[in-house]
């Protein structure tokens, strides 16, 4: 018999830790989506194009600016001492991935803004000659290459940091995995590719995005496998944490919404789409995006619930 009685009843801590609600998973999802979009936009930016070709890289920066702003809005809502948020930008704490994240977000905005400037609508260009000159300069091959590299690197940093942010908090055994950074990056890439595939108007890009998304989904599945293998072969506390997803309270939502509906089913549908056995459908990309959101909700929620079991 083991009975534990405590007089502590602090909000958000007892009876189980729940410091982060919907805001953080939503931010991590939007951040991952933007990260994926930045990598893909950077990739397509450097491809040679015929005049008049419509490139998805012209649209993604605009949408990403909105998405990352919404994400940062969610992040701001989560803060308990909101008026002090500027303190983030008076320091860089090397041991804190959250501090890196704050500064990565500072880099994300100008990179996205320059990407958006490259593709200003025609009527803007005629009304604002200075903007037209800037857009033309950004379309020069050297500037395009630089912006493409910056977009890819910043996107990768943003995507990985969202996972490392959690895995650096050692008190939560479910998050104590080096696989979380790559997993959140690849999930962001699959989310970004699924969305870009929907909005792409160029058939060559559509086909490339579909193939890329299938590859990302396959890698994501493998990383989830590694994540679980890593936990289940570690110490008792990590095995207990993994049990939350393997028979515990988060099992159904994880396997049904994240793995089944979010990865396996869309991967199957998109494989058929890629081999032209079924027509293109919005169902698969929508499932990929919902799966990405569900992944963040499950990992954030279950991770907070996991704890060290020793007294």
């Amino acid at each position, binding site marked *: *018999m*083991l*009975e*534990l*009685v*405590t*007089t*502590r*009843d*602090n*909000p*958000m*801590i*007892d009876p189980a*830790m729940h*410091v*982060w609600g919907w805001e953080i998973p939503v931010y991590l999802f939007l951040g991952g989506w933007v990260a994926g979009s930045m990598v893909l936009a950077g990739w397509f930016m450097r491809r040679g194009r015929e005049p008049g070709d419509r490139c998805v890289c012209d649209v993604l920066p605009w949408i990403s600016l909105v998405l990352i702003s919404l994400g940062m809005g969610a992040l701001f809502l*989560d*803060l*308990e*001492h*909101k008026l*002090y*948020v500027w*303190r*983030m930008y*008076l*320091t860089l*704490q090397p*041991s*804190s*991935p*959250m*501090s890196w*994240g*704050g500064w990565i977000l500072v880099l994300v905005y100008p990179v996205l803004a320059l990407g958006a400037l490259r593709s200003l609508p025609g009527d803007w260009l005629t009304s604002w000659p200075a903007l037209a000159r800037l857009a033309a300069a950004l379309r020069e091959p050297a500037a395009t290459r630089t912006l493409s590299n910056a977009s890819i690197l910043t996107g990768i940093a943003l995507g990985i940091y969202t996972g490392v*942010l959690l895995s*650096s*908090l*050692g*008190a*939560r055994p479910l998050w104590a995995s080096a696989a979380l950074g790559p997993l959140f990056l690849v999930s962001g890439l699959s989310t970004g590719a699924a969305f870009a595939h929907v909005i792409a108007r160029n058939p060559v890009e559509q086909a490339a995005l579909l193939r890329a998304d299938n590859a990302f989904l396959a890698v994501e599945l493998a990383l989830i496998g590694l994540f679980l293998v890593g936990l289940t072969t570690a*110490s008792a*506390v990590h095995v207990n944490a993994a049990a939350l997803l393997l028979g515990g309270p988060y099992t159904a939502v994880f396997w049904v919404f994240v793995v089944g509906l979010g990865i396996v089913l869309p991967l199957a549908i998109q494989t058929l789409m890629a081999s032209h056995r079924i027509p293109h459908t919005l169902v698969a990309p929508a499932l990929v995006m919902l799966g990405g959101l569900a992944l963040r909700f499950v990992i954030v929620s279950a991770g*907070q619930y996991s*704890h*060290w079991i*020793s*007294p």
Partner: protein
Amino acid sequence: MARFGMVIDTRQCVGCMDCVVACKTENDVPDGFCRDWINQRLEGTMPDLRLTITSERCNHCDRPPCVSCCPTGASHVHEFGRIVLVDHEKCIGCKACLASCPYGARFIHPDGYADKCTFCIHRVEKGELPACVAVCPTYAMHFGDLDDPGSELNRLVASRRHFALKPDAGTQPRIFYLE
């Protein structure tokens, strides 16, 4: 430089909660929150039962994860006694420190910043004991410098079997419980 810690004798602690009340009074801890608390752990099978009462709080760890994850430097190790503190004016209330503490020792103060035990640094700087230690009616709690080989803490730890909380979390806590 001193490295403050605590030794708490679980054979003398009766779980009276004087330490909890003293802390709330001394530090003006808001209603519904606590910086220290009492745990009672009952284990075994009848009639061989063992009850361990522990007065718990922030362990002021030597490897504090709450400090390393803090994005603003609000959570820091104070040079006086290496006490782990929160600078309220720097804290943004991101709650990373709450999530990173394996002891659940932190909470968000109603004013928005992360709050926790300070080892009553305002008293210790004046040469007084932390409020919880000062009021303990059974003298179960001891406070002092762990780096002083002749301190009462080191004498107690050397003379009795003892344990720290969640040692496998790797935080190197500085509160020890005598068995």
